[in-house]
């Protein structure tokens, strides 16, 4: 154990058991998995991506490249989880990944022997011989070796949630700057949301031995938190990472609601995705420390200096008993102080700078540590069990210093990600030797280390000022200034990117195994733009997105090209700032809840009557009704069709779109959106109409009835109901706002039922009794009327899709089920039945009516045999464009019927039509079958087809070619109307 006897922000009274690679350990509440591993002296945690090099823990935060584990087991296994941010809980199970058979003995580390070949860009030059080997041999091997952790491969058992929050000021990060921004804005009266990725507020205040207002940093953070928590307009989101900046002041954030528990309690989501809509934002995300590239700088035991302080101060866990500190920054020296204060030994502090301020060296004067200036670490010596010694070059001589840990500080990288998501670029600061935010997204301010203000006092002031300004922007008066008193520690940095001379690989991107040499190869081969460097070597493309490595790599490229960093620039960061589970973005929209389900009011009734339901867009519709004893769908459909044609059938057509259109210009409006005329339609009459898109292609069809002089009701297809509504509103509001009309979708207000068949009138008459006379004389084909059924308004239409005498009756939806029951009772009494969409489809094909398969957006009215409907005496949407040469060409495919020559053969929609004997090539393709049904009336499968020169070809025998289903049959092209071509039945 390396747990210190006292100190730290852990609750020693709570012992938490966990396992890593099957071995059991203990930690405390307040630990991360990484800190608990450090406390248990576990050094080897993972294997690298390409070379399978042994790796330990490099950082104490989300930027961690190495300490990635598979967390959890079974369905909850979560690959590539950063041990440094996993909050420890009792029963946690973690495993190392990307190793075989074990972490300590990973046979794939043999890859290191091949490393002379496996350099950056290697793949592009090889694996090409022989050509056939790529997919069969090389690629499968590469794929198996690549990847890091294993996904569970099983459905995620947990729930995810989405929510939206609004505030005046969003504060991101709860370090000294964030806390002050939140407190200042909140004191001014602003509604504040404070988001902190960690489970504890405070940021670096928790990790450093600093004082604010004379109190320890963590204590101060706690006091601010208490004040904020007591304010009603402040919301504190812990365990919440803001991952993206989007338009209009929208920020994406992920709250890890239950990731610190073994499993979410019942009813609690695992994670919650927030859309935070903020008038202003104070970004106080801080900075992360960067390493220095030197030989074998990836050995377990090499850790960033600030991370060492975090483990020592916050977690009371000692990463090294005898450490070397290698720092180019003033603050790296504090690591040595903190280690000594914790009882560890510091063998040496190595600083490449010639001059180091006395003030930071003095505290170490009597520590026994060798203080080496103008010196560099050239190599970390050790193996998979950790660092054993450090090789240091000073003034031409090479020293070997024994140590079991090496703390490295190469300077700081502000976390600029959220400032660049909307397209601005980070700016190189020569003073700070780092990239700082460039122009900021509207509404965003930066405060603290994210903007390069590293000192504690500076952070407190910047946070205060940004919070105050943000609140004022939102109209709140500034609260009286109150900036807590603190020291500004020395923060100078002299950039050092890499150290040459050591024997071994010098890693720039540890997770993707990109070395200094790889950067050199990219340079040599012309991949000198930073984006080329990234793509050629994979620098910065690992799960850490180069948070610690990018700048180092880019700086090395700058050296190689002799260009200043300002010119070289850096790669564009993309959201999410930290990886976000796909499940969180999906929320509840999965499984059966992927999309809403729309139910007709007769849904339960249909289920009680043996219906099988089918999706029609979001709607569910009865597809057929199985009568007792019926076991296959076709038997049921045949019965439904025969029954309807012989007696009467009832079908739910409620899902068709219904739009009420009123106003004195309603008729004129309809004349303009339909190809045929409606202004002359008499009140009490309905008419079939076709509307086009402005490009001249058919958009939708349906009947529109005139219920009054200024009142029409339009029906649309189920599929296009929303689209047609939008289309009509467009032409009304945008194109012809002068027309006096108003419209509303009433699809869901009215349940509607078709009653078809020779005995349909009897059924309808029985429903209305004396309330209406529906005889042919009083209510002929295409009549419509509003009729009160007792107290209930109904709309009755004499319409037919089946070709039979038929009615459609509409009733307010809440009465739908009841009316349906009555209709069926009356129908059954007359030998009738209910029918579903299949029988509906059969009868419409038998009658040659077009539907969705023919109205596919690629057809014009002439193709469908409906050209004569188009009025030549008025303009309408689509008229002009429908006159284009290719739309009136004589060789366009037109609608015909198709029937197998051998009536026993199965025809299928999607088959293509070819001349008999023609070769099966595209040149001979003359059309395709759009719709196919089994017609009990005809006694065979029949279909509709669009065939070149179709009408003229009726009577010829052709070939329906369907190779993807092994279909190839002879068919006769026939009239598309198979039943009652003269239309006598519907007028009956």
């Amino acid at each position: 154990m390396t747990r210190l006897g006292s100190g730290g922000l852990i609750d020693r009274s709570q012992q938490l058991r966990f396992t890593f690679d099957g071995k059991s350990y203990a930690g405390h509440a307040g630990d991360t998995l990484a800190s608990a591993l450090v406390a248990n002296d576990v050094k080897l945690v993972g294997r690298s991506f390409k070379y399978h090099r042994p790796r330990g823990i490099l950082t104490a935060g989300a930027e961690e490249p190495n300490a990635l584990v598979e967390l959890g087991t079974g369905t909850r296994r979560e690959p590539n989880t950063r041990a440094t941010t996993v909050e420890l809980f009792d029963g946690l199970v973690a495993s190392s990944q990307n190793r075989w058979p074990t972490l300590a003995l990973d046979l794939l580390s043999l890859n290191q022997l091949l490393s002379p070949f496996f350099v950056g860009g290697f793949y592009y030059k090889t694996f090409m011989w022989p050509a056939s080997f790529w997919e069969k041999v090389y690629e499968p091997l590469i794929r198996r070796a690549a990847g890091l952790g294993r996904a569970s491969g099983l459905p995620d058992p947990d729930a995810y949630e989405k929510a939206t929050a609004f505030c005046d000021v969003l504060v991101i990060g709860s370090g000294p700057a964030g806390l002050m921004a939140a407190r200042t804005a909140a004191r001014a009266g602003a509604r504040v949301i404070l988001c902190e990725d960690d489970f504890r507020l405070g940021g670096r205040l928790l990790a450093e031995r600093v004082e604010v207002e004379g109190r320890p940093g963590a204590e101060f953070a706690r006091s601010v938190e208490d004040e904020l928590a007591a304010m009603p307009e402040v919301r504190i989101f812990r365990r919440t990472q803001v991952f993206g900046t989007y338009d209009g002041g929208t920020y994406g954030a992920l709250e890890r609601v239950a990731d610190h528990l073994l499993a979410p309690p019942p009813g609690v989501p695992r994670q919650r995705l927030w859309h935070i809509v903020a008038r202003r934002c104070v970004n106080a995300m801080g900075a992360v420390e960067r390493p220095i590239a030197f030989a074998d700088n990836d050995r377990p035991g090499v850790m960033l200096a600030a991370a060492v302080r975090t483990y020592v101060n916050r977690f009371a866990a000692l990463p090294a008993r005898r450490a070397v500190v290698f720092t180019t920054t003033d603050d790296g020296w504090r690591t040595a102080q903190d280690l000594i204060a914790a009882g560890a030994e510091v063998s040496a502090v190595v600083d490449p700078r010639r001059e180091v301020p006395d003030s930071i060296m003095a505290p170490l004067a009597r520590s026994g540590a060798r203080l080496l200036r103008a010196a560099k670490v050239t190599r970390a010596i050790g193996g998979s069990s950790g660092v054993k010694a450090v090789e240091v070059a000073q003034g031409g001589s090479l020293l070997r210093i024994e140590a079991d840990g090496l703390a490295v500080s190469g300077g700081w990288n502000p976390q600029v990600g959220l400032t660049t998501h909307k397209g601005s670029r980070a700016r190189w600061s020569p003073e700070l030797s780092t990239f700082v935010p460039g122009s900021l997204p509207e509404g965003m301010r930066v405060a603290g280390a994210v903007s390069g203000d590293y000192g504690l006092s500076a952070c407190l002031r910047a946070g205060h000022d940004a919070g105050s300004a943000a609140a004022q922007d939102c109209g709140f008066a500034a609260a009286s200034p109150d900036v807590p008193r603190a020291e500004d520690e020395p923060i100078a940095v002299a950039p050092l990117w890499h150290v040459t001379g050591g024997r071994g690989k010098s890693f720039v991107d540890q997770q993707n195994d990109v070395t200094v040499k790889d950067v050199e190869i990219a340079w040599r081969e012309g991949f000198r733009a930073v984006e080329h460097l990234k793509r050629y070597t994979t620098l910065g493309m690992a799960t850490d997105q180069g948070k610690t490595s990018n700048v180092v790599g880019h700086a090395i490229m700058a050296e190689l090209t002799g260009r200043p960093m300002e010119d070289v620039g850096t790669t564009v960061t993309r959201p999410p700032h930290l990886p976000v589970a796909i499940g969180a973005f999906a929320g509840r929209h999965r499984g059966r809840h992927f999309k809403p389900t729309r139910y007709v009011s007769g849904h339960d009734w249909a289920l009680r009557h043996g219906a099988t339901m089918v999706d029609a867009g979001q709607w569910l519709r009865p597809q057929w009704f199985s009568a007792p004893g019926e076991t296959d769908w076709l038997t049921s459909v045949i019965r439904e069709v025969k029954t309807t044609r012989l007696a009467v059938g009832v079908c739910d057509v409620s899902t068709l779109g219904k739009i009420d259109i009123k106003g004195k210009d309603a008729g004129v409006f309809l004349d303009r959106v339909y190809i045929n005329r409606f202004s002359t339609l008499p009140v009490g009459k309905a008419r079939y109409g076709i509307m086009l898109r402005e490009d001249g292609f058919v958009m939708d069809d349906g009947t529109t009835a005139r219920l009054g002089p200024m009142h029409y009701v339009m029906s649309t297809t189920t599929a296009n109901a929303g689209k047609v509504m939008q289309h009509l509103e467009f032409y009304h509001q945008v194109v012809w706002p002068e027309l006096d009309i108003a419209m509303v979708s009433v699809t869901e207000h009215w349940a509607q039922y078709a009653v078809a068949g020779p005995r349909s009138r009897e059924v309808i008459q029985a429903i209305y009794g004396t309330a209406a006379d529906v005889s042919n004389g009083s209510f002929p084909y295409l009549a419509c009327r509003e009729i009160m059924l007792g107290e209930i308004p109904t709309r009755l239409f004499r319409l037919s899709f089946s070709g039979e005498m038929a009615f459609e009756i509409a009733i307010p939806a809440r009465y739908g089920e009841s009316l349906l029951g009555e209709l069926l009772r009356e129908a059954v009494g007359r030998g009738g039945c209910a029918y579903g969409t299949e029988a509906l489809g059969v009868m419409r094909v038998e009658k040659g009516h077009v539907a969705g398969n023919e109205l596919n957006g690629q057809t014009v009215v002439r193709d469908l045999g409906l050209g004569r409907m188009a009025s030549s005496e008025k303009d309408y949407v689509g008229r002009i464009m429908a006159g284009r040469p290719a739309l009136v060409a004589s060789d366009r495919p037109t609608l015909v019927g198709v029937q197998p020559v051998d009536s026993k053969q199965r025809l299928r929609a999607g088959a293509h039509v070819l001349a008999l004997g023609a070769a099966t090539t595209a040149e001979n393709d003359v059309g395709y079958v759009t719709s196919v049904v089994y017609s009990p009336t005809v006694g065979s499968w029949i279909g509709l087809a669009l065939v070149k020169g179709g009408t003229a070809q009726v009577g010829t025998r052709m070939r329906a070619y369907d190779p993807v289903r092994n279909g190839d049959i002879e068919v006769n092209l026939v009239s598309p109307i198979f039943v009652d071509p003269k239309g006598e039945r519907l007028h009956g």
Partner: protein
Amino acid sequence: MRIPCPYCGSRDLSEFVYHGDAAPKRPDPAAENASELFYTYVYLRENPAGPLRELWYHASGCRSWLIVTRDTRTHDIAGAVLAMESAS
């Protein structure tokens, strides 16, 4: 992205359906060169990089067609008016 609907207030992008540039106006179908005019109206787009007056439909809201002025480079929205009340 949030769109300031004159009826409903500031609403999330997901409530709206996009149509496009508001500049093309449906030509006079009786014009001599109507085919050419309609071809231009239906198919050709200025597609500017910069401020664009464009049509959005508040489908999951008040069903108003809006003319929104938005910069296609930054997505910054300068304002929105009802298409019906727009002078143009």
